[in-house]
């Protein structure tokens, strides 16, 4: 079975290593539970808990990769792999630590909820980071830096204004009614997430309709305007999807920080009591 690209692991070795560790851990925990029962507080339960805490701590150090020049790994991509696969293992170890039982008490519940939220949102981020770039590269001809999209849209408007110098009244009316609103501002829309060419055919169809009503002299202008509107829509698609990549960490990072704080509190309370 061939997985869709956004589900395919980028580095097979990391994936295989993690899968082996996960399988071995589950097998070991299952055997241990069958042989002598399982408790989060016994030696093996605590070992898995400690391993999960350490992996979470390592994952939390990911933002320091730039300051550390990717050390102790060779590249930032290694760091990213360690972050993704380490965190996934951490979530599994938490479940093993708990013996796959529902936690007792409210704190335990929140600890588990934060772990699952952080892990799932992280994996969602991984999928988005694979899916969106491929979509942008495949579907769009324009490439734009996110922060410069508003400036580029302004530039398109300026070009359109220059294109209209000396245009006929017919084209001017079409420009006022159709082109100017299409070029005004930026309208990031969720519809781009589901359909990259959302509304493009409908908007550009207007150019086909007007074509027979403008003179020969305005045909080139009309074609230029069509290109500008098309580019504007591509910019909006970029803006929407790149924004999604930028806001996704807000769903992942604050809960992850809360989780880390909760883990510290959990470890301290276990240590103390």
């Amino acid at each position, binding site marked *: 079975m061939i997985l869709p690209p956004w589900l395919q692991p*980028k580095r097979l070795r990391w994936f295989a290593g993690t899968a082996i560790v996960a399988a071995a851990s589950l097998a070991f925990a299952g055997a241990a539970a069958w042989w002598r029962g399982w408790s989060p507080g016994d030696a093996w339960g605590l070992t898995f808990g400690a391993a999960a805490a350490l992996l979470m701590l390592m994952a939390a150090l990911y933002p320091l*990769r*730039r300051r550390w*020049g*990717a050390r102790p790994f*060779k*590249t*930032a*991509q290694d*760091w*990213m792999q360690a972050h993704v696969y380490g965190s996934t293992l951490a979530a599994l170890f938490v479940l093993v630590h708990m013996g796959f039982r529902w936690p007792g008490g409210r704190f335990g519940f929140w600890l588990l909820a934060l772990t699952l939220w952080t892990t799932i949102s992280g994996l969602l981020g991984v999928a988005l*980071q*694979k899916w*969106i*770039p*491929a979509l*942008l*590269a*495949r579907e769009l001809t324009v*490439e*734009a*830096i*996110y922060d*410069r999209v508003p400036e580029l849209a302004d530039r398109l408007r300026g070009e359109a204004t220059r294109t209209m110098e000396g245009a006929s009244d017919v084209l001017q009316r079409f420009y006022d009614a159709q082109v100017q609103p299409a070029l005004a501002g930026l309208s990031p829309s969720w519809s781009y997430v589901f359909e990259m060419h959302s509304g493009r055919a409908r908007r550009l169809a207007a150019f086909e309709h007007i074509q027979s009503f403008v003179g020969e002299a305005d045909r080139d202008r009309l074609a230029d305007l069509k290109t500008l509107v098309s580019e504007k829509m591509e910019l909006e698609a970029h803006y929407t999807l*790149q924004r999604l*990549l930028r806001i996704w960490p807000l769903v992942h990072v604050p809960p992850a920080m809360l989780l880390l704080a909760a883990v510290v509190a959990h470890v301290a309370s276990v240590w103390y009591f």
Partner: protein
Amino acid sequence: MDPHAHGEAAEPVNPELQEALRRLRAYPFLQPLSDTVLRKLQPNLVERAYAAGELLLRAGEYSDAAFYLKEGIVEVRFAAAAAGSPAPAAADPAGTDTRARLAAFAQRASVGADGTIIVSDMPVDVSLHKRVLLEPGELFGELNALARYPLSSDVVAKSDVVCLAIRTPALRMLFKQKEVAAFKKQVDERYRARTLGSHLRQVELFGGLGDRAIERLRQTADIVSFEPGALIAEQGAAADAFYLVRGGNVKVMIRAGSTDLAITYLRKGEYAGEIALLMDEPWPFSLQALEYVEIVKIPRAEFQAVVRDHPPVQQRLWDTAVQRLKERGVASRNPLASQYLQMAMDTGLIHGESVLLIDLNTCTRCDDCVRACADTHGGTPRFIREGTRYQQWSVPVACYQCSDPVCLVGCPTGAITRAMGTLEVTIDPQTCIGCRNCVKRCPWGNIVEVPFSSPTLKKNIDLATKCDLCVGRAAGPACVQMCPHGSAVRISFKDMARVTEILSA
């Protein structure tokens, strides 16, 4: 008489131009030229005066002009010889580093028992122990200007000096003028006498050939030049010679139906024609000049005689031929390889020895590459993550580290340099005066200016900045190392097999 009466507009008399032409006529080798030709040449012929002690040319740098010495005496100092003497302080702010680098180069060079070093760009042999002087009437630096080799020696004014800088376009135009055929002949003969032998020895194929055989090839070789786009050899035509590229890039293409398919390209020092000569067949492909190209042609009979007399060369030739036929077969059967090659030639990427490419299929536009670059360079990134796009690959505005870096030509302070044997072209912010020379020369717009407070000039300048491959950084270029998705790669377009492998992955 009214010139309009003849239906021709009278050319306005420009006293400054007239004076410039009058001064140019004082140079013996320019005297046979007509006014029309001289007027065309004039913008690229510049008379320059240097005070005693001033540096005309600096070893290790690139130059876009040959120099004809009109008055005064200049001294040619090979770097190692110069290392022992104080540099002309005002004129050589970056001298210490250059000398240190070149001292190492001197150790690698072939030095005779008497300490004599043959340098190709000067009309004399330079001694490690003696200073060599050039007198009025001498021409120097022309090989560097034509073939873009770095200078091997410092040239310093020994007395007050006046010389004529003949910039490369003028040099090329001069070579086409029948009236001054002797001038071209003189330059070609100098190349044949001083450099061709070592160039031939550097060709792997001729490795191990004795002095007599090399001498034979040297004596019979023709030196020819081609304008951009010119057909050098045509597929199916009789193979007349062995072609060694002396300067420029040459496209190798085969006919595929009604179109020409690029299968590879030849750079400075590479060669073609050996298979056709060996097998006594017509040209199996066409050769086309991608830019101004200089070729050393060894006639068929001489080449075949050398091959016949030297079985090891013949064996090497067969080995090379088989290897090349395999490569060309792969290239011609793989449309992608040809497509990438054509793209590289169209966009100028073939010049790049370390081109930054970003795979847009995996790049999340997180800008970690830009931040890492900025972190490495005091807060100012050395590249812009936008540029041209080819399929899913983005080619950002980042220095390609060209094999022939034209940005190095004509830097007034020597701030922009490439250390011998290294890839990275670097700009010294202490020495850059913000003149924009390199910015204007870079054909790809990959050198950008940033506001900078120059400690040397004690004023604000627009400092020229460019990617320096994070020179000195143990882990290599930060952009590649710090990309969390492995989307940034650096590749040399010298290795088209690797380019095809990466781009089609």
